[in-house]
């Protein structure tokens, strides 16, 4: 056995409780911004709190926002989701615009999706609508009773018509029309 999956789990895509069928529920439940009031590493996060946090909270009424000032420690964002996932992220020395983008990522994802390697990029409950393939699909039923080998089934029937054959068909058509005019 390989130890590839010891650190990175692999799995299949799923959405919590039929999300998107009928209604859509944003999956971010709570976000905690931890920062220091004096440290330079928290500069970007402080700017975000001063300028954008109120708008963020207003635009996302389903999200609970906590601020946790703490002295002389690095800035951290913790996001918690409806499926119980908790994402911890250090924003040490990150600028205001970087933090805006990261918070947008945390807001839009439905859980800790980066910790899962997807094995399939599609999930369906109905793998086949018109029925699965069998060796009889699109087969000529005449084959059931034919005695093989038979040139009727073995000869290439996709070739373009030869000049000789074309001539013969022309001739027979002419014969037919001759018969008709005679009648």
């Amino acid at each position, binding site marked *: 056995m390989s130890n590839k999956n010891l650190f990175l789990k692999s799995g299949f895509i799923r959405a919590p409780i039929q999300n998107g069928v009928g209604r859509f529920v944003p999956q971010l439940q709570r976000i905690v911004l931890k920062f220091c009031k004096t440290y330079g590493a928290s500069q970007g996060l402080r700017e975000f709190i001063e300028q954008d946090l109120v708008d963020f909270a207003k635009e996302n009424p389903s999200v609970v926002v906590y601020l946790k000032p703490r002295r002389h420690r690095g800035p951290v964002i913790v996001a918690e989701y409806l499926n119980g996932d908790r994402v911890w992220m250090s924003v040490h020395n990150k600028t205001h615009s970087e933090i805006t983008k990261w918070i947008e990522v945390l807001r839009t994802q439905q859980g800790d999706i980066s910790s899962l390697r997807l094995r399939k990029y599609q999930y369906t409950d109905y793998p086949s609508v018109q029925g*699965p*393939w*069998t*060796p*009889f699909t699109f*087969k000529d039923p005449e*084959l059931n009773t034919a005695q*093989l*080998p*038979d*040139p009727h*089934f*073995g*000869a*290439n*029937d*996709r*070739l373009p018509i030869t000049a000789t054959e074309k*001539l*013969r068909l022309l*001739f027979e058509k002419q014969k037919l029309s001759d018969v008709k005019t005679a009648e």
Partner: protein
Amino acid sequence: MSACKRVQQWATFARTWHIFDCKWQDPYQSAGVIKKYLMGMHKPIYHPLNDCGDVVVCINSREIALRGEDWRRRAYFHHTGYPGGASWTLAWELHNKDPTMIIRKAVYRAMQGNLQRRHTMERLFIYPGEDIPEDVLQNVTNQIRQLRLVPTRLDHIPEEEVKNYPKVMDYPEDYILK
């Protein structure tokens, strides 16, 4: 699951037997087609790890057609492993020795050289003529279409049909037929 569905599913994962008539066929082009059936690549359920290959029965391998000067020029190389053990056999010589060898080698070379190749080749049956064992024939349920048209010799067409064939023009009276 109904009985019909169960049979269909059984057949999906069972081996199907195909027959291929090598008469007047280019072995190197036919090999590409035969290979697909042997490996199961003609099925939508194909996967390299899925053992879904079929059985192919080739008949009339004595009557294959090679292109251009191939009968005289194409050489098959063999080395015994000992010094001076190299030998080159021309295609016509090989065909005289074993009329199934050219098509077998063509199919073998059309497949990738992996561990599966020799097992896949076990599913290929080649017969020099039309006579094949009854127990092989009764398994066959499908025929692979040939790539080329098998030409018909003029002396094999009934005389009546030749006579009744439409003429584009009549020969002039002073034309001397050979």
